């Protein structure tokens, strides 16, 4: 078992290293000059730009060193908890990320809870009424909702609740999680992630329902309630956990749009701003954190699955 977890951790951590290497290389060889960009934004034009000034500033950040040395230094620093200093704000990146990430995590966590509370029961209801109108209407709604991207549902909900049914003020900005402003962003995230969990619940319920041991349970005279609760529900809900990884990717991607549309100062908004500012340490950290979240949830899913399904001995 320890062996299994060890192999998984090695697999994902080398993967993470590769991701960092590739993104660092992309920025080193491709991206614009961050220092030049910084001076440009401050001065407004290239007229007063002095190459020696740029070079000395580049030296300060160690940007004139060869690629391998820079990358090695970056990795060692990250491992020691020093994620670098933002070129733009001259503040430690880790300090900048923490409050932003906390906001996004609160949003994501609240949305996940709402999604699970709505999605799992709806999936169960749909599967129990397989191919009846209730099932078809739930699935039809979900397919339709699944098709519409986050950056479309967001604006449409905004329009609807502010112009057509004016029951809200402009739901912009961030005032803590316990505020009416978070209702629409959470609704948008839930709409985009609920299809994953609902479809998974319904599919695995339908699969388990056709198993022989369920028929045996019915044949020996158990009540329908007992069959569903004891024999179907428990094995059916375990695969739902595997969709957690998919949900996490959707959450991280969706955060970019939701935070942009509703003007929430979270992690997603910060990563877009960082790319526009050519702020290398900040970009690297957003890639690192985003990938870490997805990989970590994959790792957790793998380990949970190992305990739930003894057939996966040494994958």
């Amino acid at each position, binding site marked *: 078992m320890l062996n299994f977890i060890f192999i998984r951790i090695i697999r994902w951590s080398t993967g993470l290293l*590769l*991701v960092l290497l590739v993104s660092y290389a992309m920025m080193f060889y491709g991206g614009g000059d961050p220092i030049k960009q910084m001076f440009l934004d401050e001065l407004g034009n290239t007229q007063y730009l002095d190459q020696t000034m740029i070079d000395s500033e580049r030296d300060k950040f160690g940007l004139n060193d060869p690629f391998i040395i820079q990358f090695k230094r970056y990795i060692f620093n990250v491992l020691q908890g020093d994620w670098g200093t933002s070129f733009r704000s001259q503040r430690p990146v880790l300090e900048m990320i923490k409050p932003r990430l906390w906001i996004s995590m609160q949003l994501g966590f609240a949305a996940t809870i709402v999604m699970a509370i709505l999605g799992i029961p709806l999936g169960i209801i749909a599967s129990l009424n397989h191919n009846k109108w209730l099932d078809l209407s739930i699935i039809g709604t979900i397919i339709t909702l699944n098709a519409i991207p986050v950056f*479309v549902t967001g604006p449409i909900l905004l329009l609807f609740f502010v112009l057509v049914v004016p029951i809200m003020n402009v739901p912009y900005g961030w005032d803590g999680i316990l505020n009416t402003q978070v209702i629409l962003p959470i609704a948008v995230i839930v709409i985009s992630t609920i299809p994953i969990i609902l479809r998974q619940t319904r599919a695995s319920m339908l699969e388990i329902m056709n198993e022989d041991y369920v028929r045996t349970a019915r044949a020996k005279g158990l009540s329908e309630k007992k069959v569903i609760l004891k024999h179907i529900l428990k094995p059916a809900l375990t695969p739902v956990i595997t969709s957690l990884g998919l949900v996490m990717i959707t959450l991280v991607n969706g955060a970019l749009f939701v935070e942009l549309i509703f003007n929430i100062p979270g992690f997603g908004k910060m990563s877009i701003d960082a790319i526009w500012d050519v702020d290398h340490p900040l970009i690297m950290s*957003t890639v690192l954190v985003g990938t870490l979240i997805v990989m970590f949830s994959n790792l957790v899913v793998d380990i949970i699955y190992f305990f739930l399904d003894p057939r996966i001995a040494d994958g």
Partner: protein
Amino acid sequence: MGDLKNKSKSLRDIALKRLLNNYLALVGFVIVIIFFVFAIFGTILAPYDFLSQNIDRALEGPSKDYILGTDPMGRDVFSRMVFGARTAAIVAFTTTIISLILGVFIGTIAGFSGGKIDAFLMWITDITMSVPGLLLAILINATIKPPISSLFDALYQSTENTIFLNTYMIDFVIVFGAIALISWPSYARIVRGQILSVKQQIYVEAAVSMGANLTHLMKRHLIPNSIGPVVVAVTQGIGGAILLESSLSFLGVGVQPPNASWGSMLSDSLTLWRSFPHLMIVPAITIGIIQIAFIFLGDGINDALNPKQTRR
């Protein structure tokens, strides 16, 4: 039963017939066709040029002259939507082809060779999939622009061909690269899975035991029996690529103004929607309808090609 005519029909005919009997898929198909007609014949169908401005009539609602109204610069929204369809179609087609080639190539090698090569390729695939796709696309978009621009400059210097001065093309090349690089893993996985499962079928073993060579195996058994899921994935992939293009343009890193893209039209309207809702409604609803159409069509093709698999 016993109808010989029916039996002699090819798989393609039967699948097509099933597809045509599926109303939802048919609706999706019609919408997709309309989308491509607008994308291809946009210059003829659009009432105005997508760049021509009429400042006197800026920010008007839908009227007889401008069926979907005008934007802050006095440009016709309908014409811009038509040109946005062209942008979306070009990006969707090219990126799907690039990522399909990449995915089929990697998936086939992984599925055929097995062992360490397979493990390595699947490791790469897993890693690519675990980087949040949009973040990766934005990063690629932001970082490959300077080298591509200088490459185009160099090409212009050496060939004197003005086509390389066109920034529209640079945008497209970058968006193609970004989207293709994040969408190949799903194709690779599907192809690998198909090849692994078909490889173990008894008829393949029989063909091998009778001395079939690799080309025969590919032509007669592997490709025909594994093409179904790939076709479905491609249908959904085109829809996904349209979505990604508008996502990137929405975030401001895709196709740059003044070129029309649905995503950038939507993001431009974010500051104006309270007073001029038509600017937001038109692109938002269009993107939604196109996405639903591609999903319906993909599901329909899936049902037509895999009748045994009940939809769940």
